């Protein structure tokens, strides 16, 4: 029930409720495949399957998407791929962490649900930042985001951004591009300083 309800909320925003999102989506996807082509099964949501963007151009960045709700993984992965990103989606955060370890140099950003049983978004953040401090992490939550909630438990492991679900793909894309841009600028400056 919850799964369907959450999917409906996401899809509602994604496809019809937000004209800005829809226009952005259209303008950036001249060669987008049909919706059916983009649909993945729930098993696929647990594993990276198709890491190509729909327009065949060089991807903007590679993203790791983690959420225990397969519907959300599906919608985010599809939307972000169609906006030019390479995106791997996982419903199992431990598998996601394994993928991150195996492809540590290629991921620019991790987009993870905050509350997941077994390995929470906070725990995942800590682990990926230990492996690669430069990777950006955005946590998503359907719950109210309270300022001190994460700072109390992550004093040294910065979460780079928070997203309140549901979020439109356009807003999410802008947030990701902004974070990745900051990251690239900082790394360029570090190289220059050396």
């Amino acid at each position, binding site marked *: *029930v919850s799964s369907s309800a959450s999917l409906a909320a996401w899809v509602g925003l994604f496809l019809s409720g937000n004209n800005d999102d829809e226009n952005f989506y259209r303008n950036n996807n001249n060669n987008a495949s049909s919706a059916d082509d983009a649909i993945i099964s729930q098993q696929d949501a647990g594993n990276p399957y198709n890491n190509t963007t729909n327009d065949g151009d060089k991807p903007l960045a590679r993203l790791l998407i983690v959420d225990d709700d397969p519907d959300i993984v599906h919608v985010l992965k599809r939307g972000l791929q169609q906006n030019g990103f390479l995106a791997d989606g996982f419903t199992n955060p431990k598998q996601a962490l394994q993928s991150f370890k195996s492809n540590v140099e290629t991921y620019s950003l991790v987009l993870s649900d905050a509350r997941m*049983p077994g390995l929470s978004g906070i725990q995942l953040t800590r682990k990926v930042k230990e492996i690669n401090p430069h990777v950006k992490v955005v946590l998503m939550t359907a719950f109210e985001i309270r300022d001190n909630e994460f700072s109390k438990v992550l004093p040294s492991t910065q979460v780079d951004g928070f997203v309140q679900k549901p979020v439109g793909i356009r807003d999410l894309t802008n947030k990701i591009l902004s974070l990745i841009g900051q990251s690239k600028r900082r790394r360029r400056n570090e190289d220059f300083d050396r």
Partner: protein
Amino acid sequence: MKILTDNPYSDRIVRGNSLEIAETTVKKKILIEPGSHILLVYNDLNAFREIYTQYSRALLPQNEIVVIGTQYETVNEVKNILRLSGVDVERYLNEGTLFILDAQPGYQDAGSHGMWKFARSLLSRVKREGRRGVTWFGDAGSFFSFEKIEELMQYELSLPQKYEDTLKTVCSYHLKDFEQLKESQKQILFDHHFKSILVE
């Protein structure tokens, strides 16, 4: 439903699928007796939903106060699930006999005892209004999320195995969280709760 026989705590550990557990819990009333401090380990969210839904549907009309402290689904999702199963959510919310809360700030911001204080205040209402009792489903997931296992153990051990009044607490754990505990910690929890329910 099976009762474990190869475990020293066999008389207090019950295993079954979510439907069996829900039915036994609600219809036969053998698992959640007044005053019980229960450990519930659910293998997926649907199992947890099945149990709190059946319980709420059966006990709210019998003058019980039900509190659902949620971790892995939002308050609105819980409301919707209850509505879809036929619970008159608005009526019980307005009456103040159904409470659906985000467990994370309850346990982590107000401290573990914040929710406990709230439970005591509800018990006062039970006496004042002649109600049946209070049942508290609280998901412990935030302790794992924030890696506060020691605090979790302290909190659990601060609660009695059996309450002297009509309070029933169902300390609920997602299996993936529960599996993060050491075997010794699991055993302490099994030992400390009046009954343990493992949903398979």
